[in-house]
């Protein structure tokens, strides 16, 4: 039936991804291989005789060690095994949940300026959820009459504040004051929940110690390709192997939407923190500090939309990077078990990757223009011999852990926003306050070169450097550095190209399986929207 609706809302189709566990034996084998291969590479790299220009060598080693730490954290995370009984089993083993009566749940849908076409399917689907007595509240910080009318029409509660302090966190906190159900579900306005969302997320809540149950954020518009697909490739790795691993150690944190809270847990930490732009992350730290447990339910129970243009993606990444990097101090000070703290630090420190990439991009240019290089007394032959096995196995680890969902496009998009991470870390270092910016829910439909200006500048520098090198010294060593530069140019250009496309590289028609039926079927009029998540 959806075939007849070319612009049908992709959120109404079932997801084509499931966060199944990667084959554990293969993962462990790869980790076993990675240990000697890492030693093989770093044992070779860290010999005193390798030092070329000391400063450059130091930068290279720092970048490599940072990557090794991230990689080790990744390997460690994805091989964690959850030894707790599954929620259903726990539910069966315990008393009848919620005294045999469907519990009361407040469903909060914060919104600011998103179009009705984005919001209404979410509200409709929220109202259709089973397994609880619902109060669906549309938290409209935009105070829009049409939203109020829509809420009235659908029999949802409409909540509007006079002032929008604290952004999303403040909006939810305000709603918490006017509601009283023991459970609170938070859905971003573009995330359409499945009817069994509450049935499934309430199961782990049988355990009184569980503060929140997080579910994946699936980008339905990833089917259209382009920037949304690339962003989804990154999300898929996180909500697949990484989140499973974190959950195995009880370290899963709230991701802001598609999450069910226990009200008492929320109240115990004073609601969502409004002093952070990644309120969900800090909230989780606080809850863990107070001894609450968190759960990750690896099932797609709500379907949303990813960023559709470069500006939206950059804005989202800037907020995440600034918030997570800003929370590093908070994590370090937190009274948390070491294992949990490491998980938080790994997630926060990921946003320093941009510095490593900047270093890697700079080396070929420095070599071409000055002849200086970080490594000396080593032939390329030796370098490749030591580096290639480590690098290839690390990539294989990503492939296996991500079950093939992590794509080159995802990698390239992350690389192309290296500067966002650099700026965010500088802002965190100088303690400049971040600002919560709502991610646009629809693609701008225009080229956005400014959103990728630093990347385009880096590309230009690498191209000019390569050309200069080729003109002046056409030796194999120059060619080698030009090849490195071309590698970076290709990766950066692949990631930044969507900034130069009107539609963010998305196709008109979503790629979908015609045999699949919509997960729920709101009125057709509501099935035509597009938008962005968070």
């Amino acid at each position, binding site marked *: 039936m959806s075939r007849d609706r070319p612009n049908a809302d992709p959120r109404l189709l079932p997801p084509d991804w499931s966060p199944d566990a990667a084959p554990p034996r293969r993962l462990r084998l790869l980790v076993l291989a990675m240990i000697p291969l890492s030693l093989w590479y770093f044992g070779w790299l860290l010999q005193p005789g390798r030092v070329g220009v000391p400063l450059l060598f130091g930068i290279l080693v720092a970048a490599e060690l940072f990557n090794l730490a991230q990689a080790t954290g990744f390997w460690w995370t994805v091989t964690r095994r959850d030894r707790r009984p599954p929620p259903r089993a726990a539910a069966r083993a315990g008393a009848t949940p919620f005294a045999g009566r469907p519990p009361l749940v407040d469903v909060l849908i914060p919104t600011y300026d998103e179009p009705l076409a984005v919001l209404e399917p979410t509200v409709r689907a929220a109202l259709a959820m089973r397994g609880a007595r619902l109060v669906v509240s549309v938290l409209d910080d935009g105070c829009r009459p049409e939203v109020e009318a829509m809420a009235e029409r659908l029999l949802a509660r409409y909540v509007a504040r006079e002032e929008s302090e604290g952004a999303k966190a403040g909006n939810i906190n305000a709603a918490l004051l006017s509601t009283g159900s023991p459970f609170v579900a938070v859905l971003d306005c573009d995330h359409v929940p499945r009817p069994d969302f509450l049935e499934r997320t309430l199961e782990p809540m049988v355990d009184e110690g569980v503060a929140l149950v997080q579910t994946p954020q699936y980008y339905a518009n990833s089917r259209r390709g382009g920037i949304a697909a690339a962003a989804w490739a990154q999300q898929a790795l996180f909500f697949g192997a990484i989140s499973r691993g974190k959950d195995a150690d009880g370290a899963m944190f709230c991701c802001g939407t598609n999450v069910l809270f226990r009200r008492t847990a929320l109240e115990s930490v004073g609601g969502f923190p409004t002093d952070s732009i990644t309120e969900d992350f800090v909230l989780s730290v606080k809850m863990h500090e107070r001894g609450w447990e968190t759960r990750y339910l690896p099932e797609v129970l709500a379907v949303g939309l990813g960023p559709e243009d470069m500006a939206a993606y950059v804005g989202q990444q800037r907020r995440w990077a600034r918030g997570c990097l800003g929370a590093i101090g908070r994590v370090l000070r937190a009274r948390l078990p070491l294992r949990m703290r490491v998980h938080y630090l790994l997630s926060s420190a990921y946003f320093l990757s941009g510095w490593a990439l900047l270093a890697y991009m700079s080396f070929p240019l420095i070599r071409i223009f000055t002849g200086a290089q970080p490594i000396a007394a080593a032939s*390329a032959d030796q370098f*490749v011999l030591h580096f290639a096995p480590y690098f290839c196995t690390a990539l294989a680890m990503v492939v296996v852990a991500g079950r*093939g969902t992590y*794509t*080159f496009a995802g990698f390239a998009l992350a690389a192309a926003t290296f500067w966002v991470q650099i700026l965010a870390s500088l802002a965190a270092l100088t303690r400049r306050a971040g600002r919560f910016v709502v991610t646009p829910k629809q693609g701008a439909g225009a080229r956005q070169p400014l959103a990728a200006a630093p990347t385009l500048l880096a590309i230009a520098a690498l191209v000019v450097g390569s050309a200069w090198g080729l003109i002046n010294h056409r030796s194999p060593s120059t*060619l*080698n550095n030009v090849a490195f530069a071309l590698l970076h140019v290709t990766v950066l250009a692949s990631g930044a190209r969507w900034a130069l496309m009107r539609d963010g590289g998305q196709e008109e028609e979503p790629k979908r399986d015609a045999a699949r039926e919509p997960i729920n079927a709101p009125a057709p009029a509501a099935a035509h929207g597009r938008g962005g998540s968070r």
Partner: protein
Amino acid sequence: MSAGTIALRRAAGASLRTSRAAVREQALVAGGQILSGVGNLLYAAVMARLLSPAGFAELAAFLALYLLIAVPSLSLAAGGALDPERARRRRGRVLGASIPVSLGLAVLAVALAPSLGLSVPSALALATTPTLVALIELDRGRLYGERAYGWVTGSLVAEPIVRLAVGVTLAASLGVAGGAIGVVAGGIAGLAMARAGGDARTPRRPDAPAVPFADLSGKRNSPAEGRGPAKWRGRSAVPFGPLRTKRNSGAEGARARGPASRLAALAFLFLAVVQCQDIVFANATLDGVEAARFAAISTLGGAAVFATATIPFVLMPRAKAGEPGALGAALGTAALLGGGAALVTAIAAEPILTLAYGGGRFDAVASFLPAYMLAMALLGVARVLAADAVARGAKRVPWVALGAGALQLALLFAIGDSAEGVGISTLIAAAALTAVLVVERVPVVEKPINFAVKPHLSPASGTRRRQTLLILGGMMVLAIGLRLLASRSLWLDEATSWYETQLPFHRMLEVLRDTDVHPPGYFAVLWATVRGFGDGELALRLPSLLAATALVPMLYVAGKAMYDRATGLVAAGFAVVAPIVVWYSQEARMYAQLMLLAGVAVWALYQALETGRARYWLAYALAGAALAWTQYFAFLPMATFEAAIAIVAWQQKRAGRPVARIVVGGLLATLLIAALVAPLVPFAHHQFAVNQAAGKGFDAPSQVGGMAENQVNLYAALTNGIWAVFGYHSNATMLNLSALWPLLILLALMLLGRGRSRATLLLLAGVLVPTAMLTALALSQPFLFEVRYNLTAVPFLLLLGARAVTTWPHTGRGRVALATAAIAALGVGLADQEWNGTNPRSYDFEGALHEVDARSGPRDVLMYMPHDLNNLVAYYPPGLKTRRLGPNMPAAKVPRVFLLESFFEDRANDEATRKALVKLRGERELVRRMKFSQVEVWEFR
């Protein structure tokens, strides 16, 4: 027994009876044709004795021109065979067109006669030919269409009888003119017989029997069997038998048959061009001796093709009616006659030439005659296939024939500088034509057939198929052109191949077993090739040339089966220009076959694993065994494939899917491979033992060019990888290319998130596992770290590359751009490899030895180093005494001494050469030092 079974049995019985009837018809008409040929020969023999030599030469010229006009006229017979009614109607038009030509010729006879080598009366007689043969063939065509085969045979036989009777009688009194008149009279008699046959006036149903000779097939007129059109026009009892279309019946059919008969005429006209243009080209471009040599084999070849000339026309009416078995009968007859002729000439070429032309005159072409007869046999088969296709409504046959003619012409210009070159051009064109027509005929079944629905070919799929055939045809023409352009001097190993194939077969096997390190499969093929085509450079490399060209369609087939059409086309495009493929297409060694067979094996295995069909398992087993017989290192990919079968079976079992077909098929295929390879084991064991005992073992062979020599390291691996994709280049270029290794990091990153299919995994395994195994072997035997021993990976790499090109870009434009860029990059690699002059694997022994030949006298001496060059020196004989470089220098009385050195990287060679140069400088004056590619020559006096 079910009704369906009964129907099938009836259909099978009908098919058998049809086949028998078709065979009888073919035998009758072919018998008449052969009698006609014998009568013509007899006529020529009698005339040779009756006329003076000059008179007979004039008559021979007359007959040749008569034939030249008659052969294209056969196209009219083709049109008539398909649409006799139309032939009947068009008689006036044909007369209207041919009489002015004849009159024009008659007017010009006086002027043209001397230049044609004819007297005026003969020229006037010749002027009647266009009208006469046009009418004869038109009426014979009608008779074929009406299935009045008795009349056709009568017409065929009457012509030489009357020619002989009238010609001999008149020649006795009028000389050559009488003989020519006899030929014309014979034609008139043939025409009269043809005209009388069937019903020349009353239009009637084309399939109705003609009297009096029509009922030749016994029961076939029974309404339940044979050709009874009413039966076959109805629903067929055979699921895939008579695929009748509307055009075959009724008024609409009559309208539609017009273009069909025109297409048939056009197709046979172009086929006549393929048949005739080589002799025209040879006469126009070759010198007298070469032209005469070619004329000698062409005449005999013409006789062979003459014997098969009627077969397509007999086939056409039955093919048009969709009768099963008719094509088989026609093909069998054509193959029997053509193949028989080729076989007879292969066995007794020299006696036949002696019989035909007298002793010793053309013995030199004896070795080449069977190959040309094979070309003619193929042409006979191609004509049958073309007739069948045209009769079934195929529209592209004329263009296929035209393409073959164009290919032949291009080849003639490229390599037609000798009788052998002209003949090889015709052979390649005939083979290509036959191959395309076979591909056209063989149904491509891609999915299990649903017997409940009628087979249906959509117009779109037909158009696409036509496009694909055209593209592939173009690619093959380009591929052959590039491969021929990239010709170079033989090098050491090729000279060894040449030497070995000069020996008697059993002796060659002994030499291979005692001294070589390769299995005998390739050498057996080359031995036969040399017997058929001689031992010229082109002939020596012909198996490689054909294999490397066949890789183009093979990769298309594999790419299409494993992925999709686009991947197949791009892979085929890669194969056209891939430098390494082009390189080994011009090397008289086994590597091109290795690549082709590897492509066949992986395709067949993939199909076998996907479909479980026995034919694919058989193809896989045969290709695998052939690989083993071609090169011992083929065991690496074969071991990989065997492991792949086991893994797929295990995966299927684990997934709960049926596994019996894979297990049984795989097991039987493996057993078949083992059985086929078993005879090779003692041979290989003996080779190994003998070589080990001789202290050579599988020691480092004379390795050539590049940095990867005798070492196992990463740069060597990169170098091998670059060779496998971009071909051989100078060391400086290789250093620069190797420096681009960071792009491999990019490649690895770009593989993130790529889907993995069984096809991709199979191909990747075919590349990586043998490479890893070879690397492991090379750790103890470094010389094995050499791309030549892993060339089976090349087709797999090309397929994987094509897959990447066709799937990585998101837009069609992007795909086209990337494919173009990739092919252009390969083209640049090819150009640098072949024509830059810095390729370290290019050895110009031919140039060096020709230069020595030009500068030396018979008393001069050439010394060469290394000693292994003896076969090369024997192949390119420099016209002076030659000897291996030793401690003693030639005596002072020797006027000039030439010293030739190659393989400079061998220190022992180089040292010996230096010492010899010092000695020679002490005794003689250095006149000149000449440098050729990888070869150096010093001239002393």
